[in-house]
């Protein structure tokens, strides 16, 4: 395989990795706030694309506004889902929350089918359907948008976490809910906000990808698995590592297509997930931790 072809695969891996990174960030946020895995995360990705298509084609909004509406509405759905289905389970039992998100995932994808039908939907490219050439490899302009939006989201999240009082409250809750409550932070509010942010990040990924790959009501679960594998790879709970995990997973998938076959590329995420759980449960970037009795 020539260098150009390899670069071509690497660029594709980077693009997919950016998508996984956004989804992984969503898992990380909800995990930090609740300690639970949110199985509806993939559905937020699905909704981001579907709602944007609806705002664009259905409402006739200009594309940038339609995208904004799609992401904002998904964030709203995330918040409402948390308020209606997660918060009422007051004991915060992890198994219960996980099962609730499984049920929620089913309801959200089914609702999308009722509202928008079973067919695949597409959006036009944000600016141009053209490509750019990088050392001979071809990259769609839309992929640049994906990389740019991901970078922007990561920077914004970093700013939120480190420079705002909301971010400090979120970090405090992740470390110790009871202590956070003592200093006047309402952990329930943080959980709601985390669900909304996670939904927005997933939606952004779904929105950015739709011009390239189309979307449908049933795309959520497989993207969810990949985002989770990326989050685990980085070390669940660490946002920066989740982004790195996403990129690594995207690259691994791309290389498996390059060197093995594309039929079972989806298996890479599962292999990564099981491998990390088996050999390095704290993730490749996480420090080893011991559990206290």
């Amino acid at each position: 395989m020539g260098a150009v072809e390899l670069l071509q695969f690497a660029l594709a891996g980077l693009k997919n990795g950016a998508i996984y990174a956004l989804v992984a960030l969503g898992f990380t946020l909800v995990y930090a706030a609740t300690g639970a895995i949110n199985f509806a995360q993939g559905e937020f990705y699905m909704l981001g694309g579907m709602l944007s298509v609806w705002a664009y084609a259905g409402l006739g909004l200009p594309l940038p506004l339609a995208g904004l509406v799609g992401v904002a509405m998904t964030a709203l759905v995330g918040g409402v889902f948390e308020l209606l289905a997660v918060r009422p389970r007051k004991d915060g039992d992890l198994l219960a929350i996980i099962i609730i998100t499984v049920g929620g995932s089913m309801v959200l994808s089914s609702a999308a089918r009722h509202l928008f039908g079973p067919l695949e939907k597409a959006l036009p490219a944000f600016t141009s359907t053209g490509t750019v050439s990088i050392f001979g490899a071809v990259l769609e302009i839309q992929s640049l948008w994906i990389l740019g939006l991901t970078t922007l989201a990561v920077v914004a999240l970093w700013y939120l976490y480190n420079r705002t009082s909301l971010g400090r409250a979120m970090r405090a809750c992740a470390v110790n809910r009871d202590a956070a409550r003592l200093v006047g932070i309402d952990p329930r509010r943080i959980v709601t906000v985390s669900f909304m942010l996670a939904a927005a990040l997933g939606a952004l990924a779904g929105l950015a990808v739709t011009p390239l790959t189309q979307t449908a009501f049933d795309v959520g679960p497989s993207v969810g698995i990949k985002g989770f594998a990326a989050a685990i790879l980085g070390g669940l709970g660490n946002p920066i590592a989740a982004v790195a995990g996403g990129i690594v997973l995207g690259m691994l998938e791309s290389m498996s297509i390059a060197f093995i076959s594309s039929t079972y590329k989806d298996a890479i995420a599962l292999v990564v997930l099981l491998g990390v759980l088996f050999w390095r449960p704290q993730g490749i970037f996480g420090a080893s931790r011991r559990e206290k009795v």
Partner: protein
Amino acid sequence: MVKRPDIRLIAIVAIALVAVFALPMLTSERYLLRVFTFVGVNVIIITGMALLFGYAGQVSLGHAAFYGIGAYASAFAVLTLGWPWVAGVALALVLTAVGGLLLALPSLRLKGHYLAMATLGFGEIMKVVFVEARPVTGGPDGLSGIPYPTLGPLEFDTAGTAYWLVWGVAAVALLLAYNVVRSRAGRAMRALHGSELGATACGIDITGVKVRVFVISAALAGLAGALYAHVVGFVSPSTFSLHVSVLLVAMAVLGGTGSLAGPVIATVILTLIPYSDAVIPGLSRTALETIQEWQEDIYGLTIIAVMLFVPGGIGSLIRRIFPERGDAG
């Protein structure tokens, strides 16, 4: 044991058994028998899910995949390799048990609910395999012309006999599971669900127990698949989709914790929903279509509602009616 058996309970179980096994003699309607055969197949899967979820507190989102592996394995063994059905069943059991072990070992070693995500991933991969591995699975069209189950000279080639075979296997599976849940192994499952620290202090190898339960539940799903393929005569990838896995979770969740009867009741109810016309005479075509259109919403909302309002599911309601029984049923 010191506990005296509850006479009401024995009566209920006896009546249920008689009713279940008498059905083919009461009706000759093939559709009704066929639908209740599906219920029996799901009861076999749910027996394992009840142990896994209701006793050991673990969630699997991949049991449809084990169900599918069992179905394809036995269909392939009989159709292509010319094996007898029993050998096909054995192959299904071995493959699903080994698959279950390989998934469970990494995912269950850690605290946290990684098994759910690993099984979800496994299910999605198997969905691809069922479509792509054409020489074995027949691709998107699936396999057809799968012969009826045979046991030596016995051939289960009518709707009634197939029904008896499936429910016979289901009854045996339930009996064995009932023996397990009121034994040392059953206490170990409930103990680790109650407190992992406490269970460890009692000498219970919590990872070991969880892995065993998962392997058993995977093998039961495989067994159900090996029955389904031959009773129906046809398998295709859509039968083993994620939706089926979530439906199974809905059955286990609605059925509740610490109970076998609860999940069986939940399975009967939820399996019948898309076949409502079999049990509600005169149900209009459009009403049935509406129900089918909304069945996934029903499953999803059932899961959420149970976790919010009746966390113990039907099992906990049964315990309220028969409070003197602390354990299973």
